[in-house]
């Protein structure tokens, strides 16, 4: 069972729908017991970084940390990936999961913000998530802040700056784009995650 964490950060329906379509049993939940029992966890999220304070408020930070120490695959999507870093300029007072070093920053004034639409990935390391997804594949992005490129970055994207489009560190996975909204390649990525 895949637990999709509900921490009141936007649209969870689309992630659930995509996993249902792939035939992967999943549940949208903020129930700690249910998350503890899950064999995979998805941390979705769109919107403001301050919404991640609900993860803390619902006691989910501890179960997420436990899941990681038990080597349960965890996939952060968009805001969910940004939360894995130390912090974000968007809400400087809020501490992220801090398993990835760096701060998320706002796009510069040189480009339109938010970065909305389909952009190409430069895959640096296929890892386990990008099986059958070649470099140059288009994915759908919608965000105003970006995460830096770090040693665990597996795919980069360019818009004003070069940023992390995907990361992989052990059983910790993150994507800045929305695989549930990126057509067939996005579904392929989710399938790769489900099959871990």
């Amino acid at each position, binding site marked *: 069972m895949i637990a999709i964490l509900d921490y009141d950060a*936007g649209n969870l329906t*689309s992630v659930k729908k995509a996993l249902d*379509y792939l035939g992967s049993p999943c549940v949208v939940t903020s129930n700690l017991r249910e998350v503890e029992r899950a064999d995979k966890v998805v941390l979705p999220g769109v919107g403001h970084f301050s919404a991640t304070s609900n993860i803390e408020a619902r006691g989910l930070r501890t179960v997420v940390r436990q899941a990681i120490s038990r080597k349960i695959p965890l996939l952060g999507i968009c805001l969910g990936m940004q939360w894995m870093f130390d912090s974000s300029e968007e809400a400087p007072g809020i501490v992220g999961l801090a398993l990835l070093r760096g701060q998320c920053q706002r796009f510069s004034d040189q480009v339109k913000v938010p970065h*909305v639409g389909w952009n190409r990935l430069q895959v640096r390391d296929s890892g386990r998530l990008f099986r059958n997804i070649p470099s140059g594949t288009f994915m*759908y992005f*919608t965000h105003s802040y970006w995460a830096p490129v770090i040693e665990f970055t597996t795919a980069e994207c360019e818009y004003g700056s070069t940023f992390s489009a995907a990361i992989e560190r052990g059983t910790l996975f993150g994507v800045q784009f929305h695989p549930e*909204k990126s057509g067939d390649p996005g579904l392929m990525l989710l399938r790769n995650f489900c099959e871990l």
Partner: protein
Amino acid sequence: MLTKRIIACLDVDAGRVVKGVHFADLRDAGDPAELAPAYSRSGADEIILLDISATNQERSTLIEIVRKTAQHLFVPFTVGGGIRSLDDAAAVIDAGADKVAVNSAALKDPALISQIARRYGSQAVVVAVDVKLFSESCAKHEVWACGGRQRTGKEVLAWVGEAEDRGAGEILLTSIDRDGTGDGFDCELTSSVAVAVRIPIIASGGAGSTRHFVQVFQEGKADAALAASVFHYGINTFSGLKQELAVAGVPVRWPC
């Protein structure tokens, strides 16, 4: 490089996709739950469903149609028409929409834009702006409400600026003068709005040929272009359109 988006618009009336000229004279074009995934498979970058009769008939957006249309749709999906409150927005988002388009209700109460943006993020708020020339002699555009039936007296640049300040994530700009005519997008209007705000602009109204799309991206500086009739009645296909855009030097998602 970020690509220019081609968005298929489904104008829905009484559960069916319809399309008119100058916002009137409707023709039937099919079932939204069948058309949306078909367009997505053939290369549409996004789908927008507008319940065109919702505001005028004072009824809520057809949640069940939204749910069915979203069921097997894995590209971004925007729903508009009859979104009058945060609760209306929540209902369509819960039914599977990724973004909501607000128009008349936001003109009446602009705070609605910030309410939805605070709850779901700016990326979920598209402010739809329908405009007409004030008059033949005046080059300025006036914003109209209620599906082009009601004047507001607001000038377009002032309104899009306010919408941006209140947290809109995108502007869907429709020229009522061009809607359904196939005469081409209003590139001058689109470009004047595109340079006035920092959020993406979706151009709408007037698509009739591939050349019109090239023009609206190159001269109109649009970030996305929306069309309905050219796709419903097979005047153009997404693959054909995108191949020609690529040849003309417009970055598009192709092959996808």
